[in-house]
């Protein structure tokens, strides 16, 4: 973290940007500012946006004002909530399944070199599979009333970063630790549980955090390409199609909130799990 310097007098809303650089802030002020600054910046952006629409006169049709978006959000609240839950469930299931498969495959690839060589091109291919292509195929495979296709897409999207990070984590074990486990005649299960997995833990968690946002985006985008209605993605599409742009934006706001929720939840998980684990290795 860079040292931020500014007078220690003002923590006032929105004044962060104009601060003079003379004195270091106390840690308490610093942490308050870390929350206040982005919020005030966001409010300023919203203010300018509202100003552009209602005073400057940008067409509501092109750019709905924040006020009208909030209005739609309130009016369609129950639909927004149920859509968020639906998309959120698909994303979560995808993330969970993708994580499990990613970790399992990484364990195989770390254990057997041949598995690594076999899976490398497949993973590289999976990483670039366009959802546009995959979604219709899966939707027609599992039927138009099934959420399975969307969950599968979220799983595939989460699989890639988790696999790559976990595999890297599995390769971080130190020679002295491997010698020790061999000297203890530990079997491969004990080795995995007591050495390889704990060593890889920070890498796995980073993979899950990266995958969390991808899972939400993929589950949402997959809804554009058929399947049952009701998710955030399909509601954004139908609202936009019926020129209800403010309502489409309201669903976009919900999507952003959902993505943030996933990201923050996985970040919290990472912090929680790694909190008790010292970062410095033993000598």
């Amino acid at each position: 973290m860079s040292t931020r310097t500014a007078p220690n007098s003002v923590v006032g809303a929105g004044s962060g940007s104009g601060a003079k650089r003379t004195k270091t802030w106390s840690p308490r002020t610093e942490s308050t500012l870390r929350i206040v600054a982005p919020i005030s910046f966001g409010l300023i952006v919203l203010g300018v946006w509202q100003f552009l629409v209602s005073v400057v006169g940008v067409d509501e049709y092109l750019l709905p004002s924040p006020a009208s978006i909030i209005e739609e959000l309130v009016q369609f609240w129950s639909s927004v909530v149920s859509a968020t839950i639906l998309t959120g469930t698909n994303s979560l299931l995808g993330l969970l399944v993708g994580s499990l498969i990613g970790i399992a495959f990484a364990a195989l690839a770390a254990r057997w070199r041949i598995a690594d060589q076999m899976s490398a091109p497949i993973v590289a291919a999976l990483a670039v599979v366009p959802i546009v292509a995959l979604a219709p195929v899966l939707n027609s495979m599992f039927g138009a009333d099934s959420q399975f296709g969307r969950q599968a897409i979220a799983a595939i999207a989460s699989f890639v970063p988790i696999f790559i990070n976990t595999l890297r984590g599995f390769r971080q074990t130190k020679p002295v630790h491997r010698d020790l486990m061999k000297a203890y005649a530990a079997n491969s299960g004990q080795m995995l549980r007591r050495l390889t997995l704990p060593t890889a833990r920070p890498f796995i968690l980073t993979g899950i955090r990266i995958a969390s946002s991808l899972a939400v985006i993929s589950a949402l985008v997959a809804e554009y390409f058929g399947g049952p209605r009701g998710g955030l993605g399909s509601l954004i599409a139908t609202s936009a199609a019926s020129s209800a742009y403010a309502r489409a934006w309201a669903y976009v706001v919900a999507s952003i909130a959902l993505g943030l929720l996933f990201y923050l939840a996985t970040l919290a998980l990472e912090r929680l799990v790694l909190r008790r684990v010292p970062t410095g290795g033993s000598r």
Partner: protein
Amino acid sequence: MSDHTPNPPRAHEPMDAAGLADVAAVEVRGVDKYFETASGTVHALEAIDLNIVPGEFVSLIGPSGCGKSTLMRLIADLDTPSAGELTVFGKTATQARLDQDYGIAFQQAGLLPWRTVAANVALPLEIHGMASAARQSRVTELLEMVGLSEFADRFPDQLSGGMQQRVAIARSLAEQPRLLLMDEPFGALDEMTREKMQTDLVRIAADTGAAVIFVTHSIPEAVFLSDRVVVMSPRPGRISQIVPMRLGDAAGREDRTDELREASAFFAMVTEVREALHGGAADLLGAESRISRGAETR
């Protein structure tokens, strides 16, 4: 060279148990070790013969690259010999490893950073399925032995290097091994800590009656600890001489106190080992002067 030490192992050693007196702790016969590297084959060990009786403390000393660590790794079955025969308590090295006949400590403490001190010491016991209650009491006992009882719940990175090394030694003793393999365990410690650890190790070895193979490149350390010092020379690594430690009154474990470090018998043995090293490595002046410098400072 002689296979048997003129210095008999400690008198209190229970040698009669199950006829173990006849079985060498470690027996190495004509062992060679080659490593294949990118730049060709390296002859790491040549025609190694060594016999270590139960309860004996043997140091392997020599300049870098003389294969002393390699020899220890062969005994630990972390590597396999290219030729020759190697038995540990009359079994193959692999069988001895599977039977957990030895405890091991390396130059790096090698503690798992996500485990507490107590959990690190418990690791081998846990792997070998000791019941939780028995495990806990054994860990308490071990931490007491190395004087770290108050640090049981700390994590390794909260400990100094010397304390970490003591945890590693406690861990190596967890299963009361009859053989202790130590690869420069005090190599990274400062002089004060090092002497303290040496004194502790002498006491622990006496308490447990285990045979110890101790790799080091400090002459005074080898002399202070050992019944015999195996002097090795490099390229290819071989045993140039085995020097029995004649320390007079201080030959017994219990008598090896800090006073020994200033005794004339101690200095005589330091000189003898040093001359053995110089003789064995006369063609390697660089290594030689490094060792003699080390002898003066340690």
